[in-house]
């Protein structure tokens, strides 16, 4: 048998049909849905007189538009309320498991999937959200889909897909103190560009990837889409199995042991070929800060805002000039001299326990700068929120001047009341810094949780390595 990549193994195990000159039909083990990209899909299903084929493999959560405070009060945003009602109605009609706004298990879809043990190695997982790649951290083939494909999966539990190319992203070396998983993925995107992974599925490997906790691996896989990839994955290992053991949807006892044996067989065979390889040295990485209007416009924190003229391609020069004008940054400015108005610690990229613990260590006993207009910590799920409260993290953040909220997508994309005002600049642990992402005319800088925490205290970006703090494991 030819040596196969993990991607190929999962792909072949899910083939329902393949034929030359046509996309293959692959089976989907988990269909995750949320309120924003599903209404039209359910409406389409009803209009065509079709039913949900596998309600038992479909899981819904309210996350994008939910308020992160005062959840018991009536929702003022009637359109959002309409979406919540539509989702609840569709789930009730089809018998689909729904984690609604008041569920103790509610949270950002890509945080609760693994938390519940819904995400399991070797699976295919889709969701109408591009950060579905997060689940790849468990050795799954997970990718984002559009609403028409959501309807397709609801009706058939399958996707029409062409097999992707594969890119081996090998991160060797040991991260320096103060360097996080977030910095690894930002540096990768900085190196390959936001289109660098187009047509590819990434497999992350190497010493520095193995050393990451599951939270850190999820951070890396989460932003695969920002590098243009279809999906990103990391082979499961003992850390993966330990994370999953005992979670609600994970088999128990003998069945669990058997599952672990089959999960171990997923790893890429030695000698398997990838279509492309990229190597990164983790020991050479500095904490990263984006300066522009896409995640590829990034540099180390000791760096400076670049000059548009330093880019060779005229289109790039124009894009950089435009980005700097939007971000109100001058070429040559040191990143550590850039002040911030708000700090947001949250999102499916960085809102899990390790992220919050590390950020709390930075701010403990200190207070946010008086230059800040506000600072927000939004746990990724209500479970994370209660675990954090049990460890006293909420008190640490609130004593430091942060607001402590309920779980949801919050300020990552401002579809709920948490937005930046025009002109405001934020240090954000989220995944996109496009123009207007966090609010019209707002300015987003993507950083790791400890970099965001440090920026909150200092009122501007700092090289957190000088603060002698540990990054999330």
């Amino acid at each position, binding site marked *: 048998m030819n040596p196969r990549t993990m991607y190929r193994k999962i792909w072949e195990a899910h083939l329902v049909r393949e034929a030359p*000159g046509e996309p293959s039909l692959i089976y989907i083990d988990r269909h995750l849905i949320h309120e924003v990209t599903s209404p039209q899909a359910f409406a389409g299903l009803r209009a065509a007189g079709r039913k949900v084929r596998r309600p038992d493999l479909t899981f819904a959560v309210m996350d994008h538009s939910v308020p992160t405070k005062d959840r018991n009060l009536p929702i003022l945003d009637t*359109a959002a309320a309409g*979406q919540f009602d539509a989702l609840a109605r569709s789930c009730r009609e089809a*018998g689909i498991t*729904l984690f609604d706004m008041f569920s103790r298990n509610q949270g950002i879809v890509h945080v609760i999937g693994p938390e519940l043990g819904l995400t399991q190695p070797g699976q295919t997982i889709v969701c109408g959200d591009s950060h579905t790649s997060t689940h790849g951290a468990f050795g799954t083939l997970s990718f984002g889909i559009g609403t028409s494909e959501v309807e397709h999966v609801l009706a058939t539990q399958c996707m029409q897909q*062409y097999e992707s190319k594969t890119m081996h992203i090998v991160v060797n070396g040991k991260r320096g103190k103060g360097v996080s998983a977030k910095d690894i993925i930002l540096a990768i995107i900085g190196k390959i560009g936001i289109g660098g992974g187009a047509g590819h599925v990434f497999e992350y490997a190497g010493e520095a990837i193995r050393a990451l906790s599951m939270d850190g691996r999820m951070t890396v896989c989460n932003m695969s889409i920002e590098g243009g990839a279809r999906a990103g994955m990391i082979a499961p290992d003992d850390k993966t199995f330990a994370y999953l053991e005992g979670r609600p949807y994970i088999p128990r006892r003998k069945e669990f042991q058997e599952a672990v044996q089959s999960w171990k067989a997923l790893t890429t065979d030695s000698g398997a070929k990838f279509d492309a390889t990229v190597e990164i040295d983790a020991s050479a990485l500095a904490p990263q800060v984006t300066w522009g209007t896409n995640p590829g416009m990034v540099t180390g924190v000791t760096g400076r805002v670049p000059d548009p003229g330093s880019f060779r391609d005229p289109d790039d020069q124009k894009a950089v000039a435009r980005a700097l004008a939007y971000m109100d940054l001058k070429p040559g400015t040191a990143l550590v001299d850039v002040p911030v108005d708000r700090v947001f610690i949250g999102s499916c990229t960085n809102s899990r326990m390790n992220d919050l613990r590390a950020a709390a260590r930075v701010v403990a006993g200190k207070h946010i700068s008086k230059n800040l207009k506000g600072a927000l910590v939004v746990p990724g799920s209500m479970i994370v929120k209660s675990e954090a409260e049990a460890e006293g993290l909420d008190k640490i953040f609130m004593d430091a001047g942060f607001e402590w909220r309920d779980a949801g997508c919050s300020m990552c994309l401002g579809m709920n009341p948490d937005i930046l005002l025009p002109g405001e600049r934020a240090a954000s642990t989220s995944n996109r810094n496009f*123009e207007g992402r966090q609010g019209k005319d707002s300015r987003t800088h993507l950083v790791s949780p400890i970099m965001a925490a440090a920026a909150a205290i200092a009122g501007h970006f700092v090289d957190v390595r000088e603060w002698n703090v540990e990054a999330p494991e």
Partner: protein
Amino acid sequence: MQPFSKHTGIVLPLDRVNVDTDQMVPKQFLKLQTKQGYGRVLFYDWRYLPGDKPNPEFILNWPRYKGASVLLARAGFGCGSSREHAPWAIADYGFRVIVAPNYADIFYSNCFMSGILPVRLPEAQIDELFRRAEQQEGYSLTADLPAQTITDESGLNYRFEIDEFRKHVLLEGLDEIGITLKYAPRIAEYEKSHQPGATMYSPVDAKYSPNR
């Protein structure tokens, strides 16, 4: 789905790289429950000044591009969020063809669902098209899907590649779900041999759950 065969239209040259889907449809418009009506908000933040007044500096508002139905774009078109609202807006506005060097994967797939033909051409050809579109008022292109060509009235003729299956689906305006459901017996066979499932071993706080 609306079939596509041949289309001739005025070209709008959107000369920016990496136009992301947040620019095409900002988040506040993702709260609708329909697929229609997004054309009005296409490129909202670039297109309108405060008070929803058209921004005269943005190319979509220039009189010479009124009625444009062929969108000429640069590399990385459609990057970012998977929101299908972006191609819905593009189609609802009236664009039937996009011509660019490359697209983000999810966006590219989503275009076909809306009956939009996304054409890929080499950078040098795209550069030439931008030159012609910017120089000549009313510049128009014809996209011929069966022949796989992009032509103009001055003898330009570029051939584009497109996956056979996607071409067929677009030409016929086929319902993709209907196609897949033809293989329902195969799907059932897979389910029987692989037994995909999601058993709940300890309780969760959820509604409407069929899982045990």
